[in-house]
């Protein structure tokens, strides 16, 4: 893997000689002469595929916050669940009684253990994002220059569309990421490090995306020439699909310009020929029947019901007959009914973690939308990611 700082050095020195980007020695020497973010002497290497933070302090602080998140999700959640059960018992409410979200909130929100657990989770989330924001915005010149150097490099191309009109539903600060996916120049950087904390450090090598790509079903005729990853974010699944199907033309599209810019930076570093373009999933601009596989990675729970319907309709248009449509997301069928505490936490995630659309995603009938659009839907196999939903759709040959 090429070092990101090497990109900058070469980009500044030899902008026309693309091949020398991969040669590197002069560039590395130049890069070593450049000042690095405060507290850093030179690049600190990688944690597997993830570039290490620019200095030890932020790395350590983020490391601690990940540990605190794990503590809340285990020990504190266990106690909060016990408290919820005790409260129901004291009120004479059977544990298995189906409560509305409003009832659950009213019963549980004033319990000290539950409230403290929720507060702590949210505080850790805020501290994580704010720490990342401070790091990247505080050293904006450095990180922007790295992206600028990569913007025009290949092998894949980058299409930023600053005039693209974005629907309001994509503008939210989902999971309270500062600026969301569209409003901060370092949305891609923050998302990468932030979501790695969500995965509690078990995704340094994009393991979940590689696993999903490797489990992706292919059309019955075995032809996979073109693949689209809708709402590709920082391109982790797009790149994993390129690795599995090296001869295919792979595209990743996303509404977030900063997201795909970072995706492109990573694909340049890794020498992967993936095209990233800022486009809407409901208006992809691709020709009819263009793709053999269209997919998305945990995107739909962040899309409005209207946007969801439009995405599915567009997928039906661009998948070729016999092609596959597999939007990977949370489970919608066979999900156990939520306990009172689950209802309470669901609200916390929706209202305060700003997962604006997740609750609607659970009830908007995505499987039916896929069927009604004309796809044949298999909800049994294959499971791309353990514990997640199975929506393996095929466009009929006669469609």
């Amino acid at each position, binding site marked *: 893997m090429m070092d990101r700082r090497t990109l*900058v050095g070469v980009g*500044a020195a030899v902008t026309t000689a693309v091949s020398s980007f991969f040669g590197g020695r002069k560039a590395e020497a130049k890069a070593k002469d*450049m*000042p690095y973010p405060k*507290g850093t*002497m*030179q690049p600190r290497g990688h944690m597997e595929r993830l570039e290490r933070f620019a200095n*030890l302090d932020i*790395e*350590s*602080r983020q490391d*601690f*916050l990940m*540990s*605190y998140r*794990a*503590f809340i999700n285990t*020990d*504190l959640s266990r*106690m909060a669940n016990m*408290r919820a059960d*005790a409260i129901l018992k004291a009120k004479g409410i059977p544990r298995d009684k189906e409560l509305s979200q409003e009832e659950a909130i009213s019963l549980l*929100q004033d*319990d*000290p*253990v539950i*409230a*403290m657990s929720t*507060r*702590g989770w*949210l*505080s850790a989330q*805020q*501290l994580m994002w704010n720490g990342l924001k401070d790091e990247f915005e505080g050293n*904006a*010149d*450095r990180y*922007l*220059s*790295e*992206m*600028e150097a990569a*913007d025009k490099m290949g092998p894949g191309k980058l299409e*930023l569309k*600053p005039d693209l009109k974005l629907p309001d539903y994509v*503008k*939210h*600060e989902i999971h*309270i990421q500062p*600026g*969301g996916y*569209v*409003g*901060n*120049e370092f*949305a891609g950087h923050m998302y990468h490090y932030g979501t790695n904390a969500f995965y509690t450090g078990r995704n340094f090598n994009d393991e979940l995306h590689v696993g999903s790509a490797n489990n992706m079903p292919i059309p019955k005729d075995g032809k996979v020439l073109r693949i689209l990853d809708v709402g590709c974010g920082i391109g982790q699944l797009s790149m994993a699909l390129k690795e599995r199907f090296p001869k295919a033309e792979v595209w990743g599209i996303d509404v977030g*310009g*900063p997201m795909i*810019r970072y995706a492109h930076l990573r694909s340049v570093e890794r020498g992967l020929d993936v095209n990233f373009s800022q486009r809407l999933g409901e208006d992809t601009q691709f020709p009819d029947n263009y793709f053999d596989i269209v997919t998305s990675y945990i995107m739909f729970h962040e899309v409005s019901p209207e946007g969801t319907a439009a995405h599915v309709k567009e997928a039906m248009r661009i998948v070729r007959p016999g092609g596959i449509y597999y939007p990977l997301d949370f489970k919608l069928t066979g999900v156990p009914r939520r306990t009172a505490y689950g209802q309470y936490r669901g609200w916390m995630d929706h209202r305060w973690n*700003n997962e604006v659309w997740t609750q609607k995603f659970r009830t908007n009938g995505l499987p039916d939308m896929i069927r009604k659009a004309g796809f044949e839907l298999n909800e049994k196999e294959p499971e791309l990611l353990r514990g997640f939903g199975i929506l393996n759709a095929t466009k009929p040959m006669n469609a």
Partner: protein
Amino acid sequence: MADDKKTGERTKAASDYIKADTDNAVFLGNAHIDNLMTIVIAIGSEIWADRQRSRIMEHLLSTKGKVTTEMIEQFVPTDAQKTAWAAERDAMTKRVYSVLARDTSQGKPFGEERKFN
């Protein structure tokens, strides 16, 4: 800098967004108690940052006999060190914060006398 450009002159890709109002969340009855919880977690992260730095310094001094800021920043722990330090971190988290998981449902007010048979 990699070149002479200033931040304001660089290519940008961000657009307008809708801000969340999570900063206004009050779950503990008083905004400053909520703030204190955030502070308590933030202090934990600062302590762990110093602890990590100390561990690396100890290691460098015992193995190399000297230490510089660059050596600390560039230090890459072995897999064994990563495992050991992660265990130490998680133990510290539990040691410091597990009181939050205490069952407070039997909490007694300051002035309540304890009754014995």
